[in-house]
C-alpha cells in the first residue's frame, strides 16, 4: 500500500530542504542569541531609553504570530520600502527577530534570578559592575539559561517550517512540492516529520550534555 522505498528517490531534494532548514535555523538563532543578549540586558537596564526600546521589541514580537511576521516582512514591508528581500534572507531575519525577543526574556529572567547578594559580594570586593557581571553573574545566569534556550531553539527550528509560505526552499517547502506532484503525502510528510524529530532530538541530547558539563 505505502511505498516508503520510493522516498530514496526524493532524498536529494529533501536533503536540499534540510540544508536550508539548518542554515536558517543556525544563522537565525545565532543572530537571535545576540539580539536576545542585547535586548535582554535592555530589559534589566537602568537606562530608560534602552529599557523602553527593548520592551517594545519584546512585546511586539511576542504579541504577533511568527507566521504573520514572516508574511508581513516578505510581502508587506517591500511595498513600504520599495525593496524586496530574497526569501532565504527574509527567513533568517524572521527567525532571528522572533527568537531574539523570546531569548531576551530568557536572558532577563536568568540574570534576575541570580541572588542580589552575588552582585553585592562582587562589588564589595572592589570588582566593578562590568567585572561582576562577567565573572560572577553571567556564568551563573548562563547555566540557568540552557534549558529554556534549548526549548526556544527547538521552537524556532520548528517555526522554520512556516517559512514555506514565503517561498523559502526549506524542508517543509520541498515536502509539499514533492507530495503535491507525486501524490505520496503519507511517505513524504512522514519522512519530513522524522527529519525534524531527528534534528530536535539530537539538539536535546547535546544540550543535556552541555548542561551536565557545566555542573558544579
Amino acid at each position, binding site marked *: 500500500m505505502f511505498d516508503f522505498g520510493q522516498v530514496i528517490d526524493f532524498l536529494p531534494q529533501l536533503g536540499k530542504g534540510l540544508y536550508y532548514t539548518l542554515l536558517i535555523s543556525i544563522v537565525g538563532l545565532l543572530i537571535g542569541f545576540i539580539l536576545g543578549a542585547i535586548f535582554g540586558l535592555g530589559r534589566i537596564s537602568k537606562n530608560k531609553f534602552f529599557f523602553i526600546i527593548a520592551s517594545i521589541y519584546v512585546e511586539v514580537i511576542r504579541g504577533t504570530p511568527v507566521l504573520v511576521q514572516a508574511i508581513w516582512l516578505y510581502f508587506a514591508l517591500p511595498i513600504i520600502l520599495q525593496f524586496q528581500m530574497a526569501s532565504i534572507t527574509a527567513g533568517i531575519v524572521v527567525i532571528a527577530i522572533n527568537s531574539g525577543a523570546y531569548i531576551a526574556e530568557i536572558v532577563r529572567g536568568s540574570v534576575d534570578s541570580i*541572588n542580589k*547578594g*552575588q552582585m*553585592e*559580594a*562582587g*562589588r*564589595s*570586593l*572592589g*570588582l*566593578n559592575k562590568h*567585572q561582576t557581571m562577567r*565573572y*560572577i553573574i553571567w*556564568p*551563573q545566569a548562563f*547555566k540557568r539559561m540552557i534549558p529554556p534556550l534549548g526549548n526556544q531553539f527547538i521552537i524556532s527550528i520548528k517555526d522554520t517550517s512556516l517559512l514555506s509560505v514565503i517561498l523559502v526552499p526549506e524542508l517543509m517547502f520541498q515536502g509539499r512540492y514533492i507530495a503535491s506532484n507525486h501524490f505520496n503525502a503519507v511517505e513524504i510528510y512522514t519522512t519530513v516529520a522524522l527529519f525534524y524529530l531527528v534534528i530536535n532530538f539530537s539538539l536535546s541530547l547535546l544540550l543535556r550534555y552541555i548542561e551536565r558539563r557545566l555542573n*558544579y
Partner: protein
Amino acid sequence: MITVQDLHKSFGDNEVLKGINCEVEEKEVVCVIGPSGSGKSTFLRCLNLLEDITSGNVIVDGYNLKDKTTDINMIRTEVGMVFQQFNLFPHKTVIENVMLAPRKVRKISVQEARERGEALLKKVGLAEKADQYPAQLSGGQQQRVAIARALAMEPKLMLFDEPTSALDPELVGEVLEVMKQLAKEGMTMVVVTHEMGFAREVADRVMFMDEGIIMEEDTPEIIFTNPASERTKNFLNKVL
C-alpha cells in the same frame, strides 16, 4: 579610619538612618547591636556604598564617599565585607572564590593569588577544602571562606553583618574564633552582631542602635553592666 557625620538614609519616604555620628579608630573593634529593623545593616552598607547616602558625610581612610571624585571601587578594595548569607560564588571553587578579586582588581599573578589564597585558607582552617565548591561545605566553613575571600584583598577595614546569624548554633564558634584572631592581629573591624558574648570579649566599643540612631556607645563593660539609656537596658534584658 572611619568618620560618620550626620548620616541620613531613606528608602523612598522611609527614613531608616536619622543622623548617625561616629568615629572608628585604626585597629579598633566596634560591635553594633540593636533590635532588628533598627538600621544596623543599612548603616554598615553605607560604609562601603552598597547603599547610597541620602545626606551627611562618610569618610573612610581619608576619602569622603560623597565626593564625586572618590573612586568607589578603590575604596571597596580597602574595605572587606562579610555577609550574613556568606554570598560565596557557587560556580567557583573555594580557592577560586578567594583568588578572583585579587586577580581581577589587584591584577596580581595567578601564582601569587594562589599562594595568598592558600595561606588565607590555612589561616581560617580550611586549607584542605581549596578545591571544593561552596555547596559542599557547612555554613560555618562557608563563612570562613567568605572571610578569607575578603582578606585576600588585604583590606584595612572589615565590616561584618551578622556573620553568624545564619549558622546552626554548633557552627557559630568556629567563625567567631576566626574573627577573634583577626581582632587580635589588629584588624579594624565593625561587627553587627547578636553574639553578646563576642561583643563583650572582643569589642573595644559597643554601639547600641535603635530606630535609626546610635542611642548609646561605650565600652562593653559599661554597656553590658550599666547602660545609660533605658532603651539599651530593655534591649539587653530581652537578649541576654
